[in-house]
Each structure stands twice: as structure tokens, then as C-alpha cells.
């Protein structure tokens, strides 16, 4: 199997091709079959490969399966080659299995959509690209998947292409991502120019032995992070993610919560060697992460669209992950990535189920009291909320806690670390607050929607609830893979973070700090929960009047960031372009036209020498003679 790694991405791609070509005529059962196969096969293959991998490299050396030479030109050599190592295996498991679950869920959720075949084709394509991303053995191949998933997210966000907001959102997503990719590309150019390769192994090797200057490394890391910020929705490029909710809910769950958006984190973790050699870059990452976490969380407390809340929470959680990788706790970052995949997927699918029940309604102001209408959804949602809020013993309790602890204890930049910890902690408080606000407004109180909505309410089919249960369960117990001090995940990922002379490896957190930090963040979380409970459980919407109206409006409008971007970037650019077209081009053409006109005018004037009067001709003749005599003689 290990030499057939390329089958893993290929399987879903096959699914995409088949569904894409024949899906429309073939009918739903066929499409479903193909799609589920296309997502289950890589899951199974991946698992098999993982098991075999343990056999071949017990100490976690990377296993590379070269397929063929892709681009060979000058001193640029790029292969299509897939690799396995602990990190990619973790990702592989998450992506394939969560992906499979969401495929199952989608079969139910999208059942009545006329674009059913299209949807699954895209979804399979996404899966295969995502797998390329995480299995690729070089930055270039990673970039291939990177752009590929970008494309799929574009297609899936714009899935409801007949509306006018969905395609716009899709375009926004793609373009913003491209801005990130710009950084990624330049980083790769730098690598080719100075490392002569973009293979993960070679790059980190050369970097580790000090083959290049720190400043160059910093540059590369920052550029890579620009890419990551685009993909993983960090400040200043996060704006696309909330809009991306225009896509079908399962898509939001899979792409914009569980898998794709975490690619940035994966990439930073993957490049940990480079980052550790460039602490400056790490600091930037950490601070940006912290700010994002807090910023998004604040917005989250004043949103009414159920998916928007979750979207901002995703942004915020991604911020946490970047804090982790930023402060050097790469394993913690990956850990949170995993747990987040569980509970956020669960939350999204839950919201999907709610929306399904509400007949497409997403505004929580129309909901309320759904707990007994859709009990299963309610239960799983509750668990996930508990998890994300970071309440004791659930998934995020461990992961988030480890992040904050490492932020506090980071050896790279202690003081800044404390500051980042502060940001994170406040963000954690808000997280609990807005999640429970959402929870209470949705499931408690009494129903606020219209009558036919109330009449229409129903629990979702098993194809949707089963994944909910699984993910809900995981979000409760998922944290167990990373219990402090006897951290399995850390051990598993250890080989990915090689030892470098006088550069810090894994962060050692003293037990005491660990516990204190944990206590603090738990208290904070509980506080957040308590406040939410006090305000919203009974009073429901009235509870929402607690913020100063101005602040409330600002939060509701997401700090007007979109507007600011529009005014400072988009409009001016458009104006410049119009000027270039109407102005410069016109000038160029004008000048040339003028030239032509002058020539023609000269002709027109000279032609009046031709008076038709022969004596003038004679005069011209004679003038010629006289002048020549004058000049020459």
C-alpha cells in the first residue's frame, strides 16, 4: 500500500470524474454510491497505510512515494511524490474520516437539491485535492492541493449559483486566498533560489544545518504565513470565511471548519523547522493568531445568523491554533486542530440539521425552544458547545488549555508570550459567552418562528443524525489523545519536530503552571457560560440588549471591516483601472492618431501646391532650379 499512496487522492478524484461526467443522467442512488465510495476508499486506504507505516518506520521517519517527475527545467526539479509521516497521518485520519461522515450527512441534507450530482462531484474533488495537500511531499505539491481546495471551496460556496450573493462570496474567497497564495508562491521562489528545492525534507535539512541566513528564513516564514493567513482566515485576510457560509451547510462543516481552513496550521506545523529558526516570524504568527482569536470572538457575540456565529467562532479557533504554532507548541496546534475538527464539524452539522428543520431559516431570532422538537440535534449540539467552550474534560478543554499554557511558558519570547496568553484567555471567555448565547437562543425559550415553520419542524433522517452522534461523542472524548503530561499525540508527533542545535524543541511546561493556567481558563470559561446562562436562558432576546447600542451596531457590522476594505482597496483599484483604460490607453491612441493626422494634414496642405495652374508648376520648377543653384554653386 505504501507504494500506492497516490491511490488515496486518486480514488475520490475518480469519483469526481464519474459523477461529473455521468452523474446528471445517472440519478441520485448512483451518485450517492459513487460519492460515498469515493470518500470511504481513501479513508480505508489511509488507515491501512497508516498501520503499515508504523511497521516500516517505527521512529517516524518520513516515507516518500515518488510517482513521477512533474516539472524538470533548469535547476527546478519537482516530483509528484506523496509522503507519510506522523503529522500527515494525523491529518489524513481527520480529513478522510470526518470527510466520510460529512459525505454521509450530505446524502441526507442535499437530498432534494437539483444540483445533487454536481455537489458530490465537487465534494469528491475537494477530498482528493485536500489529500494531495496533506500527502504532498513538497511545498509545490502542497500548493497544488492548496489551490485545488481553493477552487473547490470557490465552486461549493458558489454552489447556489442562481443567487447573486453566493457566487460573489465564492469569488471573494478565491481572490482573498490568491492574495495569500501570492506569499506562498514568493516563498517557493525563494526556496528554489536559495535552497534549490522545495522538498520538505531537503528544505528543513538545509535550514537546520544553517544553510541560509536567518533574515531569509524570516522572510520565507512570513511569506508562508501570508499564505496560511489567507487559507486559514487570519487577520487581515479572514473576511472571506464568514461570507463563505453562503455555501451548503455540510460544506461549511467540512471545508470551512474541519479541514481546508486548517491547512494553514498544518503548513506552519509542517515548516516548524524554518519557523523555529526564525523566532521573529513565530512572534508575528502568535500575535496575529491571538488578535484574530479575540477579534473574531467579539464579533461572534452579536451575530444572529446561526452559521455566521459558527463562522466567526471558527476564525477565532483558528486564531488559537496559530497562537499554538506561533509560540512553538506545534503539537498543541495540531491537537486543537483535531479536536476543533470534531466539535466544529458537529456544531456545523447540528446547525445544518436545525436549518433543515427550520426549512432553510438561519436567523436565530426566529428560533428558540427547539430542544424538544429536534432532541438528537439538541443533545449533540449541547455536547459540542460544551466542548468548544473549553469546559472541563471535553476536547477543547485539553487542547485550548495546552495552547494557553504554552503561550504563557513559551521560551522563544517570554514577555510577548504572556501578552498572547492574555489575548487567548479573553478570547476563551468570549467563546464560552457567544457559544452559550447561541445555544440558549436556539434551543431554550419558546419558538419565535412562523406557524408553518413550527408545523414543519422535524428531526433529521438518520443519515444526518448518525454523524452528529459520532462527532458529538468525539468532541467529548477527543481530548483524551492529548492529556497533559502523558500526551499521546505529542509523543506521536515528536519525530516531526526534529532536534536542532541550540534551538528549542517541544516546550516543557512545569506542572504547576499547567494546572494554574488550566484553572484560570476553566474559571474564565465557566464565567462566560454563567453570564450567558444568566442573560439568555430565560430572557432570550431581551437579554441581547445589554451592549451599548453603538457598540452593538459596530459588532453587528463586524467592525465595518468589509466596508473599510471596500473603501480603501477595492474602489480605488477600480478607479485606477478605469483611469488606465479611459486615460492612458486613450492618450496613447490619441498620440498615435495625432501623428497620423499630422501626416495626413501635411499631405492635405501640400496637395494645394497642385493648383491646377501650369504656370505655378513652372514656377515651382524654376524655384527648384534657382534654389539648387543658390545652394550648390
Amino acid at each position: 500500500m505504501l507504494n500506492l499512496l497516490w491511490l488515496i487522492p486518486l480514488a475520490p478524484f475518480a469519483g469526481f470524474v464519474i459523477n461529473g461526467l455521468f452523474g446528471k443522467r445517472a440519478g441520485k442512488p448512483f451518485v450517492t454510491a459513487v460519492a460515498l465510495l469515493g470518500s470511504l476508499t481513501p479513508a480505508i486506504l489511509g488507515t491501512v497505510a497508516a498501520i503499515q507505516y508504523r511497521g516500516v518506520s517505527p521512529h517516524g521517519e518520513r516515507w516518500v512515494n515518488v510517482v513521477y517527475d512533474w516539472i524538470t527545467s533548469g535547476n527546478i526539479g519537482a516530483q509528484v511524490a506523496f509522503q507519510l509521516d506522523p503529522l500527515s497521518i494525523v491529518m489524513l485520519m481527520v480529513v478522510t474520516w470526518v470527510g466520510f461522515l460529512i459525505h454521509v450527512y450530505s446524502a441526507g441534507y442535499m437530498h432534494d437539491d437539483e444540483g445533487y450530482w454536481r455537489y458530490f462531484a465537487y465534494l469528491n474533488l475537494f477530498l482528493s485535492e485536500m489529500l494531495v495537500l496533506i500527502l504532498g511531499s513538497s511545498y509545490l505539491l502542497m500548493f497544488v492541493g492548496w489551490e485545488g481546495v481553493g477552487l473547490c471551496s470557490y465552486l461549493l460556496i458558489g454552489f447556489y449559483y442562481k443567487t447573486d450573493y453566493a457566487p460573489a462570496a465564492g469569488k471573494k474567497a478565491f481572490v482573498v486566498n490568491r492574495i495569500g497564495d501570492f506569499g506562498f508562491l514568493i516563498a517557493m521562489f525563494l526556496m528554489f533560489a536559495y535552497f534549490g528545492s522545495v522538498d520538505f525534507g531537503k528544505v528543513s535539512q538545509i535550514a537546520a544545518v544553517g544553510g541560509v541566513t536567518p533574515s531569509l528564513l524570516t522572510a520565507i516564514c512570513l511569506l508562508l504565513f501570508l499564505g496560511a493567513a489567507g487559507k486559514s482566515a487570519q487577520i487581515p485576510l479572514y473576511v472571506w470565511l464568514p461570507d463563505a457560509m453562503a455555501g451548503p451547510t455540510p460544506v461549511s462543516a467540512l471545508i470551512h471548519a474541519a479541514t481546508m481552513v486548517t491547512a494553514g496550521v498544518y503548513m506552519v506545523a509542517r515548516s516548524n523547522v524554518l519557523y523555529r529558526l526564525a523566532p521573529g516570524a513565530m512572534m508575528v504568527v502568535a500575535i496575529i493568531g491571538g488578535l484574530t482569536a479575540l477579534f473574531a470572538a467579539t464579533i461572534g457575540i452579536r451575530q444572529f445568523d446561526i452559521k455566521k456565529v459558527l463562522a466567526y467562532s471558527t476564525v477565532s479557533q483558528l486564531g488559537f491554533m496559530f497562537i499554538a504554532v506561533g509560540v512553538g507548541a506545534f503539537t498543541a496546534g495540531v491537537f486543537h486542530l483535531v479536536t476543533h475538527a470534531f466539535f466544529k464539524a458537529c456544531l456545523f452539522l447540528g446547525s445544518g440539521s436545525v436549518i433543515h428543520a427550520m426549512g432553510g431559516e438561519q436567523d436565530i431570532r426566529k428560533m428558540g425552544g427547539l430542544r424538544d422538537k429536534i432532541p438528537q440535534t439538541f443533545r449533540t449540539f449541547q455536547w459540542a458547545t460544551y466542548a468548544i467552550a473549553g469546559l472541563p474534560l471535553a476536547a477543547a478543554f485539553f487542547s485550548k488549555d495546552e495552547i494557553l499554557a504554552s503561550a504563557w511558558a513559551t521560551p522563544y519570547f517570554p514577555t510577548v508570550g504572556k501578552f498572547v496568553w492574555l489575548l487567548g484567555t479573553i478570547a476563551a471567555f468570549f467563546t464560552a459567552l457567544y457559544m452559550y448565547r447561541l445555544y440558549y437562543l436556539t434551543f431554550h425559550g419558546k419558538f419565535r418562528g412562523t406557524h408553518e415553520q413550527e408545523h414543519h419542524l422535524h428531526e433529521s433522517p438518520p443519515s444526518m443524525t448518525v454523524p452528529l452522534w459520532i462527532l458529538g461523542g468525539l468532541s467529548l472524548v477527543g481530548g483524551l489523545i492529548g492529556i497533559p503530561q502523558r500526551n499521546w499525540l505529542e509523543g506521536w508527533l515528536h519525530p516531526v519536530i526534529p532536534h536542532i542545535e541550540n534551538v528549542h524543541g517541544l516546550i516543557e511546561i512545569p506542572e504547576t503552571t499547567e494546572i494554574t493556567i488550566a484553572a484560570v481558563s476553566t474559571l474564565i470559561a465557566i464565567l462566560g457560560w454563567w453570564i450567558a446562562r444568566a442573560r439568555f436562558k430565560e430572557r432570550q432576546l431581551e437579554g441581547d440588549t445589554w451592549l451599548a447600542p453603538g457598540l452593538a451596531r459596530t459588532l453587528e457590522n463586524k467592525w465595518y471591516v468589509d466596508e473599510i476594505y471596500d473603501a480603501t482597496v477595492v474602489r480605488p483599484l477600480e478607479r485606477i483601472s478605469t483611469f488606465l483604460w479611459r486615460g492612458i490607453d486613450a492618450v496613447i491612441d490619441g498620440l498615435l492618431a495625432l501623428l497620423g493626422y499630422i501626416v495626413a494634414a501635411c499631405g492635405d496642405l501640400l496637395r494645394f501646391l497642385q493648383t491646377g495652374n501650369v504656370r505655378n508648376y513652372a514656377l515651382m520648377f524654376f524655384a527648384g532650379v534657382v534654389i539648387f543653384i543658390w545652394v550648390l554653386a
Partner: protein
Amino acid sequence: MTLHPLIESGWMNAVLPELILSAGGMLLILWTAFAPKLKGTTAPLALIVFIVAALSENAVKGGNFFGGTYQISAITQLFDITFLLAAILATLFAREYLEREGIEGGEFYALLMWGTVGMMMMAKGLDLLIVILGLETLSICIFVLVGYHRRLPISNEASLKYFLMGAFATGFVLYGTALFYGATQSTKFEAMTRYFATADATNPLLTVAFVLLLSGLGFKLAVAPFHGWAPDVYQGAPSPVAGWLSVAPKAATLIALVRIFASMMPTFHLARWSTMVAALSVLSMVIGNAVAIAQRDLKRMLAYSGIAHVGYMLIAMLSVRDQSVAAVTVYVITYALMNIGAFGVVSMLAKNQNDPQTLDDIAGLGFRRPFYGLALTICMFSLSGLPPTAGFIAKFYVFKTAVDSGYTGIALVGILTSIVSVYYYLRVVYYLYMKEAPEGYAVPVAGMFATGALAISMVGIFVIGIFPTPLFEMAGAAAHALLP
């Protein structure tokens, strides 16, 4: 009877073509006089005469005759052929034109023949006397041919203008000659060569003489600023005549000029006379091309383009070397093919000849009469010097010669002006294919003769354009004969 030793034996077949043409002309006059009913047959007869004359070139053997005043050599024969080619094309077009206009008559062809004789004398004369005599013979014929369409006011006006200017110019030519005679004590080229080998280049009288002579001949070349007559005359003259007029006399004059320039080395350069030639060529290129843009009347446009083309030919003349002679030769032959072709198509437009034949008259012709369209298009592209037509080869040769002899600057002017020229040549193609045909008059289908003529020029253009080597060899040999 005994002839004076100066009259070598064999002079008879030395001037065989001239004799044939002269006799043929008289024959035609008599034929029309005595058999006026058979006007239709005159053109074929004329053709036969021309062809016979052309064939007779084989019988001619080279050498100098009449006391070294008359040279027959490769170049004169090549030019004879050129003149005859021009005459033949003109005849072919004239046939249907004259028929349509109801002015057929042997005189027309007779005058063509005598004019050709005149040109031959210009090409072969080694004595200014003979050159001038030829020039005058030619002029007289042209006066008449231009005015041949007697009913037309413009035709008459054209001949008036040409006549007055011609006479005026003759005065200058003669006076220039006289002054040279004063200097060299002879009007033979060899004498001039001998004289100028040691002449004092600073003598302004010589310069004056040169200016007078060149301006007089420049009139025949229609080179700016001596070009005033050209557009009017071309417009007024019957189209076939205009075509012939725009080519043959220029060819004859050019070769005469080459001889003259050659005999004036090195004073030609020392006294900056070449500068005058350069100035003329630049002026012609600029004025010709610039004004042509402003023309809507095809014949006037072609007239100006003709002025410009002479400018190009003069570029080559700047350096009087065998190279440049060859270049000019090639250019002249090419020009004959493409310009007479163009005028020929114009002559096919059955329109009241007194009105200008404007661009609108050929609108949509390309699809209504594909053959004309194709022919005119090819001629235009050849005139604008685009490959793979002969025009390109010719221009290329000229520019190459110029660069080769250090006149890159003037070559640059040539290039720039030909960029301009492309515009108006292109405009013709645009009218041919991209304009809707006007309602009203119908363009007649070309008859056998015109078709033949057009075919000749098209084929010629492509053959020279694609396989120029043979022509180059001929021209090279000819040039060598002229300037050993």
C-alpha cells in the same frame, strides 16, 4: 555607293529594333489611312510589331556604332525589353479602352512605337545629342498620346500642361547641355568622362549646368519639385497612356542619367551634386507619399505614388556603382509590371473618362470582379513593397544598395515614408473588399487582351518576387556592361 568609314557595317542590325518600330509605326498609319474600316485590327498588328521588335533583340549584336555615339550592350537590350514590355502592356489595355471610348486608330500605336524608339535612343545614346533627340521624339509622342482622347477637355488640358512644361524643361536641358559643351568641348560621354577626370570641381558654371540638365531630366522623371505636371497629366491622359507614361519615360531617363552621372565622376561627388540627387529623392518620397494620402482619384494617387517611387529609385542612384544600376534596373522592371497593371485595372472602369476615377468606383470590386480585385490587390501590395511580391525585392535591393554605400540615413527616410505609403495602398484594398459596391454603373468583364495583360503583370510580380535570381543575374550583367 561607298559609305564613310564612320558608318560601320552591321549598323543596320545594330538598330534593328528602332528600324522595325519606326517602320511599323508608318505601316500602321498607312493601314488606318487606307483601311479605316479595319480599325479593330490595328492593336493586334501593333502587338505583332512590338513582339517582332522584341525578338529582333536577339539578332542585335553588341558594340558601339556611329562613331561611338550609339552603344548596344546587355543593359540597353534589357531596357529595350523593358520599354517593349511597357508598350505591350499599354497596347493590351489600350485595345479595349479605345474601343470602349470609340477613339481607336493606328496613330495611337504608331506614336507608342515612335515613343519607344525615342526611349531606345535615350538608353543607347553615348552622346547628349542623341539622348536629347530621343527625349524630344519621346516628348512629342507623349504630347499627342496624352491629348489623344480629343473629345475630353481634361485630356486636352493634360496635353497642354505637359506640352508647356515639356517645352520649358527642354529649354533647360538644352541650356545645360550647351554649358557642358562649353566646358568639355563635346557632348559625347567619353569626352565628358575624360574631362571630369581632371575637372576643377569648384567651377560653379559646371554646377549650374548640372542643375539645369538634371532639372530638365527631373521633369521627365516627375521628381519633386519638378513633378507639378504629373498628377494632372496622369488624370487627364487616357488610362493606358498614363500607365505607360508613368513607367517607360522614367526608365529611359534613369538610364540616361546613370550614364551622365557616371561620366561626371568624381566631380559628381566632389561638387556635392549627389546631394542634389539625394535632396530630390527625399523630397519626392516625402511629398509623393504624403500627398497621395489626400487623393481620392486613383490616377492622381498613382501619380503621387509614382513620384515617391522615383524617389526610391534615386536612392539607389546616389552611389553610381554597378550595384546601383542593377538595383535601378530591377526596380524599373518591377515598377513597370505593377504600375501599368494598376493603371490597367483603372482603365477597365467603364466610367465617363472626364470624371475622376475615384476610390468609390472600385468599392466592392473585389467580390464583384474577383480577377480585377486580385490583380489590383497584388499590384497595391507590390507597390507598397510587401513580400513576396516583386515590389518587396525591388525596394529591398534599393535599400540594400543605399546601406551598402553608406546612405543609411536616406534609406531610413525611405523606410519611414513607405510606412506612410502602406496606408493609402491599403485603402485601395479596403475599398476593394470591405466596402459595399455602389449602385449604378457596372464594370465590364475584362476581354482577352486586358486579361492577358493583367495576368502578365500578376505572374511577373510573383515570379520576380519569388525567384528574383535570374533577373538579378541579367541586371548584374547589364550593370556591368554599363559600368565596367
